[in-house]
């Protein structure tokens, strides 16, 4: 059986069993039933209950072995001690069981119970997810354990050892425009590990970029082998918890196992081309750039042009990008000469960074950007262009359509010079509610056009540096 065939019942289940739903309808599994119905799950839902005949309007069954059809995915949230017997009773009738409950290997007194659970899953003939996790989010199967999430399937495949962080990834991803091919939380990894999901996502045609939150890799050698054999066929972003001694201690109590040594992870990244990030923000920022932009190994990102309003912002960003190994260097004379012929208002800097006050950007209601960018693309030859707009400087001074026109102008230049430069938008704001609302609306528009949008220059810089690292890796090892 191929890895795709093995995991299809998880990502696109036709039958879902739920253990732990109560007749009163207020337990977490009841919420899960409601969520997957709202999410559009169209298969059969089988509540499992020792006494009830009906739960949430659905016929209930006594055991996992008693359901009318075999169970593709079982969601289990009851107290831990009773679960092993339920699994071993399934007798080959269940493909995947997700044990959300905690109290297993993450605490000393639960280690024995976790072993028992893993044995029971094997005896019952199923793959086990968890314990100590939150569930899955899969649009192709219309199953989700999160309250909200993107309604469109996308290219980002996620595996997370932490359930809560998995939910954060979905929710924050939604607001940033990430679209997922799936998300699986694996908790203590008594059976299914992040490596299993990595293997699936590499093979899965829907997935173009892979994100992993890992606290420990008990099968580290296998993780390395999968990444090495994949030869960076898809970008893999790893958010690794427990990279410091203190973080390691926290991870031990979180997932109940020892985290690997930091230098191993650095070596892993250098050798396999995967990208290590330190924070959830960096994780999402990096996934976003790979979702939006196709890496170009033959022209690895090095020279970056900054274009927007804010002189100090441009200077700080130039420093930041230089530290990240990117070049924000002045244009050559011919480019500067061509830009000078546009006779932009005083206060406009036409080297690189290109600093254009709002007074400049609002010329021709923002269409001036097209002329500037056309010259930059044609003569400046950047590998990436970061357009940054400080929204608070526009408000009250320009027509609302100026911002739209600026981005539309940039998109036209992109089309005129296909494959020339990666285009990234930074929308800066001051947190004021009305401005935030305007930014959100504007960001959604840009994201819909396939533009990755960032809150600050440094976030965009980190993501660009990851893209550059990946491109260089591919170029050196193609």
């Amino acid at each position, binding site marked *: 059986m191929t890895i795709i065939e093995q995991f299809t019942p998880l990502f696109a289940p036709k039958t879902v069993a739920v253990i732990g739903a109560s007749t009163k309808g207020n337990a977490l599994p009841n919420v899960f039933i409601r969520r997957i119905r709202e999410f559009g799950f169209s298969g059969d839902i089988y509540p499992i209950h020792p006494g009830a005949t009906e739960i949430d309007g659905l016929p209930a069954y006594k055991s996992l072995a008693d359901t009318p059809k075999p169970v593709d995915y079982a969601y289990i949230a009851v107290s831990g001690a009773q679960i092993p017997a339920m699994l071993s009773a399934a007798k080959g009738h269940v493909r995947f069981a997700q044990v959300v409950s905690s109290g297993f290997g993450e605490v000393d007194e639960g280690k024995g119970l976790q072993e028992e659970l893993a044995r029971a899953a094997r005896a019952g003939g199923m793959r086990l997810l968890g314990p100590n996790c939150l569930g899955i989010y899969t649009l192709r199967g219309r199953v989700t354990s999160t309250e909200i999430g993107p309604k469109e399937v996308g290219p980002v495949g996620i595996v997370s050892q932490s359930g809560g962080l998995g939910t954060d990834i979905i929710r924050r991803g939604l607001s940033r425009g990430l679209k997922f091919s799936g998300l699986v939380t694996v908790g203590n990894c008594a059976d299914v590990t992040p490596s299993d999901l990595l293997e699936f996502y590499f093979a899965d045609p829907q997935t173009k970029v892979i994100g992993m939150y890992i606290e*420990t890799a008990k*099968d580290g050698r296998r993780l*390395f082998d999968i990444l090495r054999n994949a030869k960076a066929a898809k970008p893999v972003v790893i958010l690794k918890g427990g990279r410091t001694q203190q973080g390691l201690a926290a991870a031990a109590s979180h997932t109940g196992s020892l985290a690997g040594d930091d230098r191993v992870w650095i070596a892993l990244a*250098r*050798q396999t081309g995967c990208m290590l990030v330190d924070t959830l923000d960096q994780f999402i920022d990096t996934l976003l750039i790979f979702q939006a932009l196709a890496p170009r190994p033959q022209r690895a990102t090095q020279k970056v042009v900054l274009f927007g309003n804010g002189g100090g912002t441009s200077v700080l960003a130039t420093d930041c990008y230089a530290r990240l190994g990117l070049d924000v260097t002045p244009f050559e004379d011919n480019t500067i000469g061509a830009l000078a012929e546009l006779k932009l208002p005083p206060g406009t800097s036409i080297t690189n960074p290109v600093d254009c006050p709002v007074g400049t950007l609002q010329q021709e209601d923002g269409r001036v950007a097209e002329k500037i960018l056309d010259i930059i693309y044609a003569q400046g030859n950047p590998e990436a262009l970061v357009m940054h707009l400080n929204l608070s400087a526009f408000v009250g001074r320009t027509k609302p359509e100026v911002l739209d026109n600026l981005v539309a102008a940039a998109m036209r230049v992109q089309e005129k010079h296909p494959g020339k430069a990666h285009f990234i938008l930074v929308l800066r704001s001051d947190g004021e509610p009305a401005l935030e609302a305007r930014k959100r609306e504007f960001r959604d528009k840009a994201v819909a056009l396939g533009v990755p949008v960032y809150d600050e220059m440094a976030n965009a810089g980190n993501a660009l540096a990851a893209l550059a690292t990946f491109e260089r890796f591919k170029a050196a090892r193609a």
Partner: protein
Amino acid sequence: MSTTKENPVIAARRAGRNALDESAGKQLLAAHGIKVPQSRVAKGLADVDAVMKGLQAPVVVKVMSPDILHKSDAGGVKVNLRTATEVRAAIEGMINAPKIKGARIDGFLIEEMAPAGHELVIGGLRDPQFGPLVMVGLGGIFVEILKDVSFRLCPIARIDAEEMLTELKGAAILKGARGTKPASLEAIIDVLLKIGGENGLLMQHAGDISEADINPLIVSDTAAVAVDARFILG
């Protein structure tokens, strides 16, 4: 080095040892095609004349004992000896050294001195989750104080070995900074691959070797020679 000899890892395991002594360690390195200085073992003072006939002076004498971990600190290493008489005097001195006196002595390793060059360290260790790792660093303070080392998971490819070297903060020193001769990067890469590569020493003995330490590896502009080596088994 003779290939008819028994694999030193298996021999040490059978003898119940948890480490390879220097001679066995070098035999293992030589079996993997890594240059080690010409050496002979003298069981005692009576062997010295015969042993010295087969070697090119100057030589170094090192005590061989399972009880002595740090030979230099114990007074068990004497360098730059030119004649059999000098070698015998050195051995007599060692036998009477306070930190060696009570120890079990297997013999004395008499070894040609490697030509001058850059001192590097190449190491290996087995991670419980990821298996064998290979490490390289510049010797002396670079490794000990600055921790200027680079790690990779085995097996490494040639490009990994190259990147390990460029990643060192002291990489420029190897190219011959401040009037010193450059080190042969090719020779270092060759040793790294023989230790950490696809069929390298660490992969072949992944189940037996928990730590490896070639310190120093002396690298001239043409060659790399493993002057001391330790292997911890387990």
